[in-house]
């Protein structure tokens, strides 16, 4: 059941992937429906919170503070977690994380693991590494299970199978669980998944998880979830291995309070997650006998070093930005070529990858600001996107066609004389493309007789515009020409 993971190093450019996905009407319908439902629930629950903006601000401060003193809090976490009987491992990159986890699973004597949703393990492509070492991983988060059984890829950071509808899920279950008579009600599907997973929970003795937060003060790990399958993974096995990005640490126990209010409301439109699990270390007779945390860097310290990109790491992975993003809502998550899709993916992936593999992602946004508006920790995503675009431009140098055009326009803007010359030149340059047309489509001013020009085709870099849109030709007189004449009159 291995599958090709989403990998920014091999993914097609966003534009190309998006174009292909825009043709999938079913997928677009599913994504739109699911994000509409979540967004409506979210909106209601946010509206009922009078102190929402205050909550956001305190969460932002907590996260920003934690990042500013990340070394201190990670140390503190390690000390406290170790004291409670757990073991901390540090992984610089994906390969090291894979090595550590594979080693730990082997040490546990198991050739199977149960997993609870962890985008971090997707990021490091852990399942494939486990598979290669002869270890089979069972995803136990319902959405991840659907992805795994369907040999698909996650498309959303909270609801990885958001792009599938119920009928499609039923088909996957029927096929892979060998259930020809499976019904199509949500309860039927949940029941099938429960039976399928229950057997794994009782049999498999090693678990791999992610985490929502690490608490430095207590050496605690926090996972919030809706299904309870996570709690099964945390409590039933003998060995628990959590793979967590280093940015997930928060200083104090009490910092959880605003975060746990913001996260479920932003993510799924719930007041509270049905399951909020917190644990630290091992306790005789209760839960796993061995606990490991793998603290993953994989590019994060580089992000931290960049003062303008750093706030990206404040993210608590609620996906509110994804649901709100009009670009994501058109294409779904696979267009982003990474496990992190939507606005957060567009800023996180290029930074984790040092940009060279995801040059198109910073441009996968109209900068409409819907993501910033909903982000519970106030990450100014549009600002970070612009910052990354600047990096892309610097990286590509000045001799691309786009760059030369931009330079020429910028030069014109630096003097009134040159600007006016460019306006004239533009009118001359466009004139062969302009089709004159009686203003029969204008409702206002129907009495007028003048013709208006329209452009239906543009060459080169601008051609994308005229695939679906016309462009009105430049009027004969610019505003400044009119103004001057008026002054003289």
């Amino acid at each position, binding site marked *: 059941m291995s599958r090709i993971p989403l990998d920014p190093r091999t993914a097609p450019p966003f534009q190309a992937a998006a174009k292909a996905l825009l043709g999938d009407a079913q997928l677009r319908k599913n994504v739109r429906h699911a994000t509409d439902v979540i967004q409506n629930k979210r909106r209601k629950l946010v509206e009922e919170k009078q102190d929402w903006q205050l909550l956001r601000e305190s969460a932002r401060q907590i996260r920003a503070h934690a990042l500013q003193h990340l070394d201190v809090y990670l140390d503190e976490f390690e000390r406290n977690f170790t004291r409670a009987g757990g073991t901390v491992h540090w992984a610089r990159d994906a390969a090291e994380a894979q090595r550590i986890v594979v080693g730990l699973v082997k040490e546990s004597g198991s050739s199977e693991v149960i997993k609870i949703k962890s985008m971090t393990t997707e990021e490091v492509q852990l399942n494939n590494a486990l598979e290669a070492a002869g270890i089979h991983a069972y995803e136990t988060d319902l959405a991840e299970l659907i992805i795994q059984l369907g040999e698909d890829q996650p498309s959303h950071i909270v609801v990885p199978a958001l792009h599938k509808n119920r009928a499609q899920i039923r088909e996957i279950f029927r096929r892979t669980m060998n259930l020809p008579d499976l019904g199509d009600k949500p309860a039927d599907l949940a029941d099938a998944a429960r039976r399928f997973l229950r057997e794994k929970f009782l049999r498999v003795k090693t678990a791999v998880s992610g985490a929502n937060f690490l608490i430095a003060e207590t050496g605690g790990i926090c996972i919030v979830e809706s299904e309870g399958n996570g709690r099964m993974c945390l409590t039933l096995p003998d060995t628990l291995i959590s793979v967590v990005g280093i940015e997930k640490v928060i200083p104090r126990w009490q910092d959880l309070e605003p975060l746990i209010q913001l996260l479920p409301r932003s993510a799924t439109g719930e007041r509270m997650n049905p399951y909020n699990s917190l644990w630290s270390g091992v306790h005789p007779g209760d839960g796993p006998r061995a606990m490991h945390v793998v603290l993953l860097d994989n590019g994060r310290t580089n992000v931290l070093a960049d003062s303008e990109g750093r706030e990206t790491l404040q993210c608590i992975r609620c996906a509110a930005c994804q649901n709100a993003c009009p670009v994501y809502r*058109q294409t779904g998550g696979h267009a982003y070529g990474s496990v992190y899709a939507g606005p957060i993916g567009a800023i996180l992936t290029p930074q984790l990858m040092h940009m060279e593999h995801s040059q198109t992602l910073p441009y996968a946004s109209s*900068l409409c600001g*819907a993501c910033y508006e909903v982000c519970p920790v106030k990450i100014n995503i549009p600002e970070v996107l612009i910052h990354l675009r600047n990096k892309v431009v*610097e990286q590509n140098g000045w001799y691309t066609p786009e760059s030369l055009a931009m330079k020429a326009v910028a030069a014109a803007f630096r003097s009134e004389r040159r600007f006016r010359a460019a306006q004239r030149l533009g009118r001359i340059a466009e004139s062969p493309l302009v089709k004159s047309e009686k203003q029969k489509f204008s*409702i*206002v001013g129907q009495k007028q007789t003048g013709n208006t020009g329209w452009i239906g085709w543009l060459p080169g870099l601008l051609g994308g515009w005229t*695939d679906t*849109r*016309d462009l009105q030709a430049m009027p004969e007189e610019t505003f400044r020409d009119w103004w001057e004449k008026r002054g003289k009159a």
Partner: protein
Amino acid sequence: MKVALFITCYNDTLFPSTGKAVVEVLERLGHTVEFPAGQTCCGQMHWNTGYQVEALPLLPRFVAQFEHAEAVVVPSSSCVAMMREHYPMMAERIVAEGGDATLPQRTAVLLPRVWEFSEFLTKKLGLTDIGAYYPHRVTYHASCHGLRSLGLGDGPQKLLKAVRGLELVEISNLEQCCGFGGTFAVKNADVSSAMLSDKTRAVLNTGAEECTACDNSCLMHIQGALHRQRTGVTTRHIAEILAHTEASEAAEEAGETEVNV
């Protein structure tokens, strides 16, 4: 009041009728309009596309042109957003690179006097009814920058509701981006077009004759599709609606005035 007009590069070049309408409204309200001739562009296109080095020189240019104005009016929400969000940062960067050390202070003093056109009317002047007449069914598109960066709220709608003869019909996806996004419309043409078709469908569903906004860049985009699809629905900047009066209507009837569309 002496109002300096920053017309923006694309309004100057592509939508002069908007500028004329702004002048008309402001003068009708008794203000004196100035047009500093050395103005060009706010730098948004370059800045947002990643060409920050190219955008930087436009800031000292803007400050020099406008710092003596009592108020600066800009008929473009995205250009005002560009200024408020990025000019302070740009000024700091210019200083860091050894440029004019007075720039941050001068920028900070100037920016509070810069207003988006509808915002100037509603927030600065406290007006909603400015004596316009426009007997048409119109829908309003809230441009993202006006909505989120400037917080225009329902100011533009209030202005439109006070226009005699105008029937304002609400669009269903008011908060949704039309998909323009500057160079996004070209770089990601397919996604942009998909977003646009959602928007134009919503415009057509209102049954409006016309779609208006505080930003000609969104309108150029929406108009592009409405025209391609031969829908007969047009777009018009809010200033042009507010400039319209019974007198201009009568003049049009008589065929005296040429209307710029």
